[in-house]
């Protein structure tokens, strides 16, 4: 029994990270219809932020702040110099732009920093286990559950209680009307990218806490997972992204934990097969976006 509980904790912790990643994609998609495949590279930037902070021996909480800050700045820079000039382009043009940004950033990391992974050691206190009766929860998974919950609460408050947040929600529903109300488009879009960058930064901290190193190609896997999660949830829907992220994380851990050994190498095929079933059942995702913004 306790191994099942244990795996459920693992699933929630992984699902939470996917939820943050998918949210980062969805925030931008809901407003500018761009699937930003450079989102993974924002995570890499955050990871190098942590690495450099550790290299000058900043305490860990500052390293986390540096990571998030780096990701936000990188998101704003890519918006300003790559996506804003392309704003009139169609969805394909935007998509290709995001691939280009991602490729350029990867080569910059590889040739400017190192082709090899750089270690990001965690403070020794993180390698522990907390005993909750039958359950032994690692500090890192626990932390990632807590940080995911806090981020989701903060984002909800931001979207519902602040003018900018409300403007973003309005932009997702009808951008033209929002502009007629006198809200500056550039500002709303920049904030969307900043929020997306912050989510990438937080996700990167949790991701790196698990893997212990950062490398130029690190962003590839998470952005794929985020994309799958966002599609399961319903592209462009924020609650959908969270639901999709958790669904994907839970599926992955459950298949890894309970598939027979001989079938384990095909885990991803099982997971993606299940994703197809979900999409047959709900073609627009678990919680679809309002009809106008569907892809």
């Amino acid at each position, binding site marked *: 029994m306790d*191994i099942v509980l*244990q*795996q459920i904790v*693992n699933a929630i*912790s*992984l699902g939470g990270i996917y939820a943050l990643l998918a949210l980062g994609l969805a925030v931008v998609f809901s407003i500018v219809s761009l699937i930003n495949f450079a989102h993974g590279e924002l995570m890499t930037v955050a990871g190098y932020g942590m690495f450099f902070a550790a290299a000058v021996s900043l305490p860990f909480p500052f390293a986390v702040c540096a990571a998030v800050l780096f990701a936000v700045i990188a998101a704003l820079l890519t918006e300003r110099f790559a996506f804003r000039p392309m704003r009139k382009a169609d969805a394909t043009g935007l998509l290709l732009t995001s691939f280009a940004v991602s490729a350029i950033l990867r*080569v910059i990391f*590889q*040739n400017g920093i*190192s*082709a*090899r*992974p*750089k*270690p990001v*050691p*965690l403070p*020794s206190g*993180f*390698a*522990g*286990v907390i005993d909750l009766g039958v359950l*032994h929860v*690692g*500090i*890192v*998974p626990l932390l990632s559950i807590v940080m995911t919950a806090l981020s989701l609460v903060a984002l909800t408050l931001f979207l519902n209680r602040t003018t900018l947040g409300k403007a973003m929600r309005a932009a997702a529903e009808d951008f033209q009307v929002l502009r007629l109300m006198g809200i500056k488009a550039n500002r709303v879009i920049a904030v969307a990218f900043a929020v997306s960058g912050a989510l990438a930064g937080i996700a990167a901290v949790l*991701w790196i*806490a*698990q*893997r*212990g*190193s950062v*490398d130029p*190609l*690190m962003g*590839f*896997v*998470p952005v794929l997972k985020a994309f799958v999660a966002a599609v399961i949830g319903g592209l462009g829907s924020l609650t959908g992204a969270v639901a999709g992220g958790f669904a994907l994380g839970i599926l*992955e*851990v459950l298949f*890894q*934990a309970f598939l027979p*050994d001989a079938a*384990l*190498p095909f*885990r*991803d095929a099982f997971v993606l097969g299940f994703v197809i079933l979900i999409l047959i059942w709900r073609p627009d995702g678990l919680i679809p976006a309002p009809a106008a913004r569907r892809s």
Partner: protein
Amino acid sequence: MKNFRFTVLAGAMSLAGLTTGAFAEDVTIGLATAQTGGLAYADQPSLAGFKMAVDEINAAGGLGGKYKIVLDIKDTRTDTAATVQAAQELVADGVKVMITPCDADPSIAAGQISQPAQIPTLTFCGTTPTITEAVGDYMFGTYPADNGQAALLADYAASKGYKNIYILKSPDSAYTLRLPEYFEEVFKKKGGAIVGEGTYTMGQQDFAAEVTKIKAMNPQPDAIMTAAYEPDFPAFLQQLRGAGVAAPVIGSDGIDSPTITGLGAIANGIVHTTAGSPVAGSKLAAFYDKFKEKTGAAPETVYVATGYEIPYILDAAVKAAGSVDGPALRDALANLKDVEVLTGKVTYAGTNRMPIRDITIVEIEDGKRKPILTAMPDPADVPKP
């Protein structure tokens, strides 16, 4: 006027051609290696070492004392199709020797282009022992092969008194799959048992499910063996130690990098095989110093040294062959015996062109690698590829 200019230009060009052609016998080595992408971590340092050796050999008169080396370097971006294309271009350009990336798949793909053209081809640090047989008699390995590493590691594990070992492998590459399987074969022969086996996907972030299974094992395994490398290995280790599993971890040369020692206390006690360890006073240590002096930075991995050794292996073969002619050079390479290199001796004679060479086992302690032993694996132990 236009014609006149053209004549002058053509004349100058033919003159230039004459001068290079008349005074030196050049030999072009083509490198189709991954300077960007997932293999760059190994191919970049290999190339840095390779270039340094080429400069030294050219300063001393060239390969075999008379063939000046010219390099034709192409980036394959860790893409097998791009590797094939680069190999085709190099063959068309008439290179005499080809170097391929640090991995079996692109090396085999490139080798299949160079083999019919009778161009001796060496992989930087592809370690899968089937590379050479998959291509043919012009394909050579240079790095300690997987089955040799596994045999020596299994021998060490048995001598350490380990009885029950857990294995973690990934079917995504020959290295991550076959090396643990070779280990299993030798370890069982030596009386050990494999009490559990996990698989992962390369690039997989989350090892929680695997780690939970290991944590639940009773009794705990004496050790955990894996050929996982970066970034999978640090992720696995981080989560393994995070879950409170204390069993020692043993691995292979893929984790011979500063990333692992940079992980801090959780890296203590890791034992792994490697091509060499720069012990104070060794040839390898002297090379590390020389490299640092020249480039300003000490080598980050042993790949710099193994890359540096390749031109010297070629030099020995060209001396023996007396030419850079394809078939002659192939025969000379295949018959090389006890060539002294930085990390020990390299022998091709009597092998299937994957060299027999010294392998070192090291243990990580407080961010440093401490050599435990250096030896050639017992040929009777080494599993068939």
